[in-house]
């Protein structure tokens, strides 16, 4: 996050899985200039291979769980909050690192500009969330809770500090969530101000936050030492191309679609592909964990059967009228059409006809519409059935 220096060989974070060091290839002198290599000399040399390259691994798999997660909306989009221009305006994730015992300051809250302990910290919620004009229309869901947590962490580390939170609504829906926010306000003295911030600027080493308190109807100006932005959750870059590769649906924010929002929340329309976590939409840790567990058990249920149940909707060739033009073979996206030989008693091939491999056919019906001699029909959606439906109007 650009808050401290790290070595070229490092463990990403203490709880990383797998918990092994990685090399930053772009900055490693051994890889770039063939100099140094000190790390290999102090560890078992077999552990470090500087020549390792990215490889494409091909595996046959039975199911896929998509858990690609989220990213934050770029803070720079909100110029009025000064992110990127004012050093002491940081994001929630950066605050998380400041408060972390394994973070750049060893868990002491120090502001980035001069390393001093900030005595007044302003938290701004809904940066990009619920803001159709500049951000996204949805609520990012987790910010109310982590901001409350941040105010508590701050108070526990800086006893004489004061935190201020600008919010639109406090959305603490969840077991013991409301009580948690009340604790931040009543026990740890976080000052919650209902209203939006209009401007953040620097004056005499302070970060001045101007905003409205809509409950008292007053304009407020706070001389803060540090500002923390609760930035909106957005889908990961490339989420749409990933969805197209997998054949699963996504919405206008590029979050993936469940098969059914209520009854099939971890399945997708494509058999064998399941979803977990924030690739579906903003959600907090408990929700992501339960979704991951649900997806894993769905996969285990799928694998525990000796036989796989399939949709009975498949294409079906009328062998008396098929003339082997192979329009269907060209049209089929699954290569489910095979060439089947018709032989006489002497075993001589008389003609080749189309045959549907029912294990491969997904029942889209593209071949049916492509067939010029009307020799293929789709079970469940035959021409006759469609015409009967039309006649009923």
């Amino acid at each position, binding site marked *: 996050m650009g808050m401290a220096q790290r070595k070229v060989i490092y463990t990403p974070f203490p709880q990383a899985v797998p918990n092994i060091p990685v090399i930053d290839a772009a900055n490693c002198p051994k890889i770039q200039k063939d100099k140094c290599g000190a790390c290999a000399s102090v560890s078992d040399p077999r552990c470090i291979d500087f020549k390792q390259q990215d490889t494409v691994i091909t595996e046959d798999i039975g199911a896929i769980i998509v858990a690609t997660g989220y990213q934050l909306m770029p803070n720079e989009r909100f110029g009025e909050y000064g992110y990127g221009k004012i050093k002491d305006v940081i994001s929630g994730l950066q605050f998380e690192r400041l408060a972390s015992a394994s973070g750049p300051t060893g868990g002491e809250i120090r502001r980035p500009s001069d390393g001093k302990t900030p005595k007044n910290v302003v938290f701004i919620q809904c940066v990009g969330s619920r803001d159709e004009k500049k951000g996204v229309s949805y609520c990012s869901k987790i910010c109310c809770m982590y901001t409350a947590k941040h105010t508590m962490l701050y108070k526990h580390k800086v006893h004489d500090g004061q935190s201020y939170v600008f919010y639109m609504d406090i959305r603490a829906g969840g077991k013991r969530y409301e009580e948690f926010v009340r604790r931040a306000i009543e026990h740890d003295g976080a000052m919650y101000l209902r209203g939006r911030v209009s401007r953040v600027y620097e004056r005499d080493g302070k970060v001045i936050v101007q905003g409205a308190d809509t409950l008292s109807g007053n304009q407020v100006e706070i001389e803060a030492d540090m500002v923390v932005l609760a930035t909106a959750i957005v889908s990961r870059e490339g989420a749409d191309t990933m*969805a*197209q590769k997998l*054949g699963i*649906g*996504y*919405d*206008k924010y590029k979050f993936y*679609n469940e098969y059914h*929002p*209520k009854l099939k929340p971890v399945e997708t*329309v*494509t058999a064998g592909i399941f979803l977990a976590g924030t690739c579906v939409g903003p959600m907090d840790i408990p929700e992501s964990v339960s979704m991951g567990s649900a997806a894993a058990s769905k996969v285990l249920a799928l694998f525990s059967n000796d036989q796989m149940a399939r949709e009975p*909707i498949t294409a079906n060739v009328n062998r008396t009228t098929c003339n082997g033009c192979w329009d269907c073979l060209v*049209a089929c*996206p*699954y290569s489910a059409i095979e060439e089947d030989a018709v032989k006489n008693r002497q075993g001589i091939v008389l003609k080749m006809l189309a045959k549907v491999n029912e294990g491969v056919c*997904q*029942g*889209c*019906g*593209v071949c*049916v*519409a*492509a067939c010029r001699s009307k020799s293929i029909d*789709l079970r469940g*959606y035959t*021409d006759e059935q*469609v*015409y009967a*439906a*039309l*006649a009923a*109007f």
Partner: protein
Amino acid sequence: MSSHTQHEQTGGFEPKIVAFVCNWCTYAGADLAGTSRMEYKPNVRIIKLPCTGRIDPLFIIKAFEKGADGVLVSGCHPGDCHYTTGNYHARRRWIAFKNLMDFVGIDSQRLHFSWVSASEAIKWVDLVNNITDEVKKLGPFVEYKSLGDRQ
């Protein structure tokens, strides 16, 4: 046919619109409109197919013959087809047959093609409302209906 004329005289003509939709995107989008309790014009009759690629152009002609005043074809957005490429087949077929439909006497204003994804309930509602209004202005489409009656 006579009932159509009567309706027109009283100004109460309600068009029949047949929508051929795919199971995975537009049908799911229409379903979402329902579960989200959105309201839209009741003139649309949905025929669900697995994919827009399943649509035989003959279905559209048959729909007009059976009394449809407008036809809507809607499926997944390009690139998002559940069956990978079915909607591309539909699009190509649409381009090839649209002029032919015009040639056989079907006013192209009565034919609509759209992409509605499973999350676009609002788009579906707007689409149905707009097409209903448009077809209402055109009045009843009786030419093909009379062909059907003759059979």
